[in-house]
């Protein structure tokens, strides 16, 4: 579909709400879902005479996030006012950071298929969120009225601006997923795109192959406020197709801002850049410059948890397959389960196999996460021990896991209650084997004449007579011994 004489250039701007207890510049609760305008005060309502006071916890969270992306932290940064009139912006300016953001030059490694690629982060800045308008119709212009809810006004945000280092919708999706995963490790946001705690703007342009000028000179289309990772991908795919069509038809691409319609899976024009706002940024005089000491930054860095890339390295070292590693690192609950489980059972392959097959199937069926699993890491480890020491066969283990899942009881309790332990005693099994050989002379004949399959039948018969409790290994060995002598 895409014209080979053009390359796709994608950059993303991601807004992430920080989950501080209170808002960025006042003491109001930072909470989703409260009654309209209940989490407000003179500061976040923009009342005359009210002044902002910076929330230090928001700064800590922002710096932690930036450090997780390997950014350089500016020790002296500044807040600026970004000015425009809109009913959801009570002061008619947003306190943001313009030319001295607190963090710059980080990176995110993404994996798209088998290729690895680094997307550079140009800057991360802090700002306050705006409120929300609930239109009594389709939009502000056509509605009879709009209701303003300022609960969200003043909630702390970070905006993460990437370099235009992505070249497909897949890479954009991979970048967003990785961003989200890293942020979930740092634990600074709810990251719920549907509730607006993570929002994305995508810049898409087409670069002629061999173009050497500044990317700024290319007609860039900005798709605003896309509300899920899936839709970011769909919006970029649509936009690549639309721009390719225009280029193929010899038409020019207009530099503009577009929205994305979920239902039609199309982008639509919102305003062209020529009528763009002049935000009249200037330094916020109500706040002193933000000074961060090297010592404090180091202490935030020391407080960071092990991040996905470090986990990848560690898990690779343990011999876990790449595909399983990706599954594990993108789900912190799964990873936590694994590490807890490894405290009791050191066989990494055994643990991951059980987690990612049987456990995952049971959890998915019950719509639960690993954090909510009725079978905890310690219980799974106990089950694996019982299999390892031969108390249970693998098949019995699977059955028992289902039972543990349903009852919440431990493997040992259930084995006692159900009399499920595996029979490994040679003397007991020799009796059963002898009687099966006696009852199936024809099959024994077949085996002796070279039909290897016949052995499986005989094993099955012993299992049947012991209601599956016989150890398959012991039965196999005994049959061979007795038939081959």
């Amino acid at each position, binding site marked *: 579909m895409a014209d080979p004489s053009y390359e796709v250039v994608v950059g993303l701007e991601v807004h992430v709400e920080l989950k501080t207890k209170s808002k960025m510049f006042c003491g109001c609760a930072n909470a989703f879902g409260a009654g309209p305008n209940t989490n407000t005060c003179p500061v976040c309502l923009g*009342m*005359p*005479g009210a*002044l902002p006071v910076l929330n230090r916890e928001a700064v800590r969270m922002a710096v932690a996030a930036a450090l997780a992306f390997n950014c350089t932290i500016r020790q002296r940064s500044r807040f600026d006012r970004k*000015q425009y009139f809109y009913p959801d912006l009570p002061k008619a300016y947003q306190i943001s950071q313009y030319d001295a953001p607190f963090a710059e030059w980080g990176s995110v490694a993404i994996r798209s298929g088998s290729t690895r690629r680094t997307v550079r982060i140009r800057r991360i800045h802090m700002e306050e969120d705006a409120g929300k308008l609930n239109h009594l119709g389709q939009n502000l*212009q056509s509605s009879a009225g709009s209701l*303003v809810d300022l609960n969200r006004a003043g909630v702390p945000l970070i905006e993460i601006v990437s370099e235009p280092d992505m070249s497909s919708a897949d890479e954009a999706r991979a970048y967003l997923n990785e961003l989200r995963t890293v942020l979930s490790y740092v634990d600074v946001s709810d990251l719920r795109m549907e509730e607006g705690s993570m929002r994305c703007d995508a810049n898409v342009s087409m670069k002629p192959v061999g173009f050497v000028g500044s990317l700024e000179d290319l007609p860039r289309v900005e798709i605003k406020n896309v509300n899920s990772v899936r839709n970011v991908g769909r919006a970029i795919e649509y936009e690549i197709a639309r721009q390719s069509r225009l280029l193929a038809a010899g038409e020019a691409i207009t530099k503009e801002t577009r929205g994305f319609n979920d239902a039609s899976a199309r982008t639509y024009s919102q305003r062209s850049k020529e009528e763009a706002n002049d935000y009249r940024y*200037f330094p916020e005089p109500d706040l002193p410059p933000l000074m961060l000491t090297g010592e404090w930054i180091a202490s935030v860095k020391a407080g960071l948890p092990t991040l996905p890339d470090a986990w990848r390295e560690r898990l690779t070292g343990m011999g876990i397959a790449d595909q399983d590693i990706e599954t594990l690192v993108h789900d912190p609950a799964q990873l936590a389960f694994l590490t807890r489980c490894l405290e009791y059972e050191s066989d990494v392959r055994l643990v991951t196999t059980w987690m990612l097959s049987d456990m995952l199937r049971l959890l998915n069926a019950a719509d639960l996460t690993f954090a909510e699993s009725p079978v905890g890491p310690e219980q799974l480890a106990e089950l694996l021990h019982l299999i390892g020491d031969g108390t249970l066969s693998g098949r019995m283990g699977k059955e028992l896991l289902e039972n543990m899942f349903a009852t919440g009881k431990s493997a040992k309790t259930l084995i006692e209650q159900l009399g499920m332990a595996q029979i490994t005693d040679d003397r007991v099994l020799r009796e059963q084997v002898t009687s099966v050989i006696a009852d199936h002379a024809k099959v024994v004949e077949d085996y002796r004449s070279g039909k290897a399959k016949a052995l499986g039948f005989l094993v099955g018969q012993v299992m049947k007579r012991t209601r599956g409790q016989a150890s398959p290994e012991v039965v196999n060995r005994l049959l061979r011994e007795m038939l081959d002598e």
Partner: protein
Amino acid sequence: MDTLATSAGEIAQSVRVGDVSAEHIVNVYLDRIRRLDGELHALLSVDEAGARAAARMLDSLPAEQRTRLPLAGVPLVVKDNILTDRLPTSAGSKILAGFYSPFQATAVERAVAAGAVVVAKGNLDEFGMGSSTEHSAFGPTRNPWARDRVPGGSSGGPAAAIAANLAPLALGSDTGGSIRQPAAFCGIVGLKPTYGRVSRFGLIAYASSLDQIGPLARTVRDAGLLLQVISGLDARDATSSAEPVADYLAELEYPLRGLRIGVPSQYFGAGIEPEVRSVVMSVLDRLKAGGAQTVEINLPHTEYAIAAYYLIAPAEASSNLSRFDGVRYGFRAGASDLVSLYQNTRAEGFGGEVVRRVLLGTHALSAGYYDQYYVKAQKVRALIRRDFMEAFAEVDVVVTPTAPEVPFGLGSRRDDPLKMYQSDICTVTANLAGLPAVSVPAGFVEGLPVGLQFIGPAYSEALLLRAGRMVEEVVERPRWPLDEP
């Protein structure tokens, strides 16, 4: 006891020891307000019931509690851009006519906690923008010394109220001279503290990086008394200072031996009326006779101060006043859609001088002009600050006339904003440099008051008050224009 002949300090002392009731004091002043303010129009609202109730509350306090109140029973006028909880706060603007704030300014809270009784709100130039109080949406204030002349501005109402003895103390605000110039024009004492010394929380912002709340009083001692109470760190204002507050009254009566007074040629040359200059020089001669030294100094960047001030202050004002949009509070004009709501509300709600400064400031911050205007003005500001730093290596304080002229006629400058802006020539530098400055009465020219200004290093308020007290000693006390014989 003759209430009206006594100072704020003496009133508080009488109330503390129970010689007179706070209610009596308040009644005497309310009676005076009723008789005199009809003609002066120094006040925009008077809280008779609230003031009496507050006074009775003070009278009912146990003696040991009342004796701890430095301002026990002292009536206080508050400039109407400082928020009070019982009286409306208009900022002198139609756009906030009848506006009641849900909270009170820190400075007012502290004065009230010290026993002061808020009796009335003082008139001002709309949002503090002006030097004559003629730009009040509610009509001008007359100068008690000459009823056909202006009281100065923007704190013209509070200054006139003190001169007419409608209250012993007032709170004003000073952005470019708005406490000091009206203090000079009304023959009283006015002090602008170091930037950050007094919390701005609850001051309706004009230019946030220049605004300070400060005291107006008939004597230096009374000004120090009020300053003592309102100064200090406030957790609600991030620009307020943690610098310890000095004891302003402790050494007030000890003359400063060998005080080195810097006399900058730039403030005594062209643009200063010769009669004003000679009044100030004559006071300096008397101080020298008492042992002070005068030193000729140079503040070379003074000539750019007015230009820098009239870019920085309007730039910040254009942003600070954006919140008055008719959406949440205050005046709302009839409108058919959102844009006309903004346009009509602001066009009908703001007066001409406010519109002029908002336009000027918006322009100064616009893309393509920002570097040329705002950034350049900030560079000038830094140079002015450096001028003072260098001067204070040689001298203790800098002396200037407070205003280049005596009070001018009502209506005489209405249509000449540039001439009006020149009235601020001696006062804006202290705001640009963030330094404290005090204006004290220096004498008269044909019955019209002249003020002398001392500018000091940061946090040198105690020194400025002692220097001001020395001036009081060598200047004959006036017979106040409206005091009964």
